[in-house]
């Protein structure tokens, strides 16, 4: 008994940490899961059924479109930018600076980013004014900036730099020798990318795109600051559910919506983990 107690003693040192996480991370998660399946204190599927409501469904669909399109845009342009950086001098100042800036921009979101685009493209935004006064172009249109197209543009602003950061290590892993060996064996540039570069980078590319997808799907602040009316995407629907006591006649809809988000993100992250495992087989 005594030795056993002594062996358990060190574990006690972890109690404060675990206790803290329990209160501020685990309990909230449990509250969501439990809340999603209760109504007025009793077990119920009412809230889950609420997810089938056309407006909720529409919001999820738009959220998925937003996440997928900005993940695609971010992945394509981000990898092009990453390649442009890698193909230069690897220890050069330009590359170091660009990587640092991308690190900052990938974190740059929320209210500040929303106002950056409001200053640029809103009705009296700088670019809108410039194009209207000097080229006679009405870029503002019917206010697309504050709807899904606007969100796609604005999200790209942090998705592209995020792609650069997560994809750069994979590009760095492509050795010059592989390129030269392929060339030597008779490969054209296209054949190199088709048979060597492409297959080697594809898992990392796809994995990065999945991260971008999850990142966009989970984002809230930018959309909240940009879109003050309507609930075009799931996170904004959650805002509506939280701020008005009862929505769609359901008290706990917010929990069901949150659970929906958890499930989507979990699926994406699981796919990501699978891909990472596959790449690590070669690049170890």
């Amino acid at each position: 008994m005594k030795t056993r107690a002594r062996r358990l003693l060190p574990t006690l040192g972890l109690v404060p940490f675990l206790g803290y996480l329990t209160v501020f991370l685990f309990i909230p998660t449990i509250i969501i899961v439990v809340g999603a399946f209760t109504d007025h204190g009793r077990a119920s599927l009412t809230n889950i059924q609420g997810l089938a409501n056309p407006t909720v469904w529409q919001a999820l669909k738009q959220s998925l479109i937003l996440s997928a399109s900005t993940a695609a845009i971010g992945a394509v342009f981000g990898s092009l930018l990453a390649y442009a950086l890698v193909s230069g001098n690897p220890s050069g100042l330009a590359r170091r600076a660009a990587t640092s800036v991308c690190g900052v921009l990938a974190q740059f979101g929320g209210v500040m980013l929303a106002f950056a685009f409001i200053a640029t493209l809103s009705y009296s935004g700088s670019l809108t004014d410039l194009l209207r006064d000097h080229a006679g172009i009405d870029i503002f249109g019917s206010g697309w900036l504050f709807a899904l197209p606007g969100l796609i543009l604005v999200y790209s602003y942090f998705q592209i730099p995020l792609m650069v950061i997560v994809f750069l290590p994979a590009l760095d892993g492509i050795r010059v020798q592989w390129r030269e060996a392929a060339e030597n064996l008779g490969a054209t540039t296209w054949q190199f990318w088709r048979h060597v570069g492409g297959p080697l980078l594809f898992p990392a590319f796809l994995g990065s795109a999945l991260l971008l997808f999850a990142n966009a799907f989970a984002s809230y602040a930018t959309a909240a600051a940009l879109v003050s009316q309507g609930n075009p995407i799931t996170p904004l629907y959650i805002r509506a559910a939280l701020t008005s006591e009862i929505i769609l006649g359901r008290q706990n809809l917010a929990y069901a919506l949150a659970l929906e988000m958890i499930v989507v993100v979990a699926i994406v992250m699981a796919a990501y983990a699978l891909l990472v495992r596959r790449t690590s087989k070669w690049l170890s």
Partner: protein
Amino acid sequence: MSRTPRQQRARRLRTFRITVFVALGLFFLVPLISMAEYSTRVNGGGRSGAAWAALVTDPDLRSGILTSLELAVLTVVGMIVLLVPTMVWVRLRVPKAARTIEFLCLLPLTIPALVIVVGIAPVYAWVTYFLGNSALTLTFAYVVLVLPYSFRALDAGLSGIDVQTLSDAARSLGAGWFTVIARVIVPNIASALLSAAFISVALVLGEYTFASLLDFQNMQVVIDYLGKSNSQASVAASLAALIFGFLLLLLLTLVGRRRRGEPAVLAPTPQPGQEG
């Protein structure tokens, strides 16, 4: 003289690089330039710094900035108090738990911040019951928010030193556990602590989700609210906050670079919980 294939290829590559840099450079620069232009314009022509002056004169904005700064300090303190002893303890006495602790610390990356807010609201009913309805109670949530990033920074720092040997040496000289951590370990991971603190400050200053949905007035909430009446001031505040965050994070990459072998803390793996 005709160009050789190799020169042609180098030329094509250069054209490609310049195109990419110019096009994406414009995409990233235009909104920033617009912010500067928008926040200083005067209707009917001319320039004015009035919107920028509001940063210090507007009482709401001032108190929001102050709140956010206080929150940043409290979060850093809370993060250090919670994380450093735990991480050192794991390395010294319960190495078996290392993987679990790492998993738990990185968990907030995969749970969107918005989701945590939904679940944490009832918990905050209790927090306000015990501690009063102060914006500073956001610290509790923010410590969770910065956990993954701080963990990475600190983990890199601790991996760079031999915690076991250092603590054995200190204890053989008569030091207690508190002394070991405060006087021996901490000074040796100073730069990692600094990185963890920087990234925490940057995250807290940009935080909007928790504050707005739990109904507290931090800087971002005030900026957002102000946008409805004085969008120029909001744009000025956004640009100022952005520049400040820029400097902070650039400083962070410099600190990170000083120590060899430390991975950049900024290189994020999944960050769905992040503002964005």
